[in-house]
């Protein structure tokens, strides 16, 4: 099973109006390591044609990227009002 298949078993209540994590594209563009792409357990950070692509919809709210990014690009907040990941087992 690849990571996309694993994520597909999860339940989310996605907030279309609020990205609870944002990145600063100008910092990511010149980032020498893109460690976020390796660290994030939900593969929300991907390099596509050399450009960082971030998808908050798949986030499982662990906080790894906040620690992983040593360049200050990641702004991490909790989703609003019960939205985001919804674990059934935990």
């Amino acid at each position: 099973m690849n990571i996309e298949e694993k994520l597909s078993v999860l339940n989310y209540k996605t907030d279309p109006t609020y990205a609870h994590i944002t990145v600063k594209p100008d910092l990511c563009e010149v980032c020498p390591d893109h460690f976020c792409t390796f660290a994030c357990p939900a593969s929300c950070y991907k390099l596509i044609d050399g450009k960082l692509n971030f998808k908050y919809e798949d986030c499982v709210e662990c906080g790894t990227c906040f620690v992983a990014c040593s360049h200050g690009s990641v702004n991490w907040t909790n989703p609003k009002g019960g939205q985001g990941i919804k674990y059934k087992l935990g």
Partner: protein
Amino acid sequence: MSEFDAIVVGAGPAGASAASRMASSGLNVLLVERGDPPGSKNVSGGILWGQELSKLYPDWEKSAPLERFISNKVTGFLTDDSYIGIDFRTKKFEKEKTGYSVLRTKLDGWLAKKAKDAGSMVITGITVDGLAWNSKRVVGIKQGNDIVTSDLVVLAEGANPRIAIGEGLRPPIGDHDVAIGIKQVVKLSEPVINERFNLRNGAGMAAEFSLGFLKNGVKAGGFLYTNKDTISAGVVIDIAGLRKDNSTYSFNIMDQFVSHPYIAPYLEGGQLQEYSAHLVCEGGIDYVPKLYGNGYVITGDSAGLSFSNGMVIQGMNYAIASGIAAADTAVRCKNSGSYDLNQIAYYDHLMKDSQAIKDMKNFRGISKVTWSPMVHEFIPKFAENVLNGMFRETGEPKKHLMEIALGSLKETGYDRKKLIIEGFRLMRKM
């Protein structure tokens, strides 16, 4: 006049325990949880060690949603080719229960309900944005433009404490303070789990491994915990090693663990029910911030309260204990009619005397050992070589153990002097 005696942020084991105990002592308590229902944001590897809950609910072993009691503890190493483990079973674990496997969405739902039954007001699906201050004193919480006031705020946000960090109540998180926890819950039937792990009558296994098959300085531990009819399989990854390598995906380490030739058969035929991730506090006592201040206390994972020496991993019991200490502090403040700083300092006094802080102080710096190349590279390789030398029948003349050990040592390519120094450090710290 505040609206509440205490507001608790976060309904995990720390927060729900604090709210329950305060409310049952007659305090006016608000418990705010961003997940809806409580527990839907929470993850842990899954063993609740100890008897802390008996202080709140004497019958908890009968009424709480527990999966299996731990009768069987395994600790070991995995290399590319081998599985090396100590498999400890004892009747003592059956007579006096030492730990239970749990699934947090169920457990935390139950804990929140107990807090509500005790008289707390519980609101879910509300994300607290920050704290309300009045001249250097925390006087409540903020959500959007709303402020709700209380004499004490109990921060129980978990391992990713946005408010505590955002309000400057604790330093940001470094590479050595936390590890990346990833877990898969796999569905099998209860009889199949009993057969595969040789378990009967509600007994369960807690197994932890050092993943010696990882390369390039990447380090991780793996765990297998049996639940009633599911298995929790997961990894805990060292961030510093992963960063240095910068070519290994965290989620692939999870995959490598569950597809290891001696782990995969345990999970065979099982259906993936959930994939999850969570930070694991690893920083030890040096990661614990000042636990209190004017108008607030910090509990559980938010305060970095967790213990790991590679063989024993605990957190939920410390969280519950800190929640109880926070509650006892609030009750004392209420009774004395003062929530002044020197009254709130009672929490610190209780915690200094707690098992959590004592354990963590006693094992200061242990993570340097648990994440050392000695544990993750040398010992698995060395043990594998020695055991091969002892047990593999090759038709060659048999060797004495010492001879095998020295030969194995040479094969690992480790510097002997460095080994002696690291070995002593390992013995002393562990």
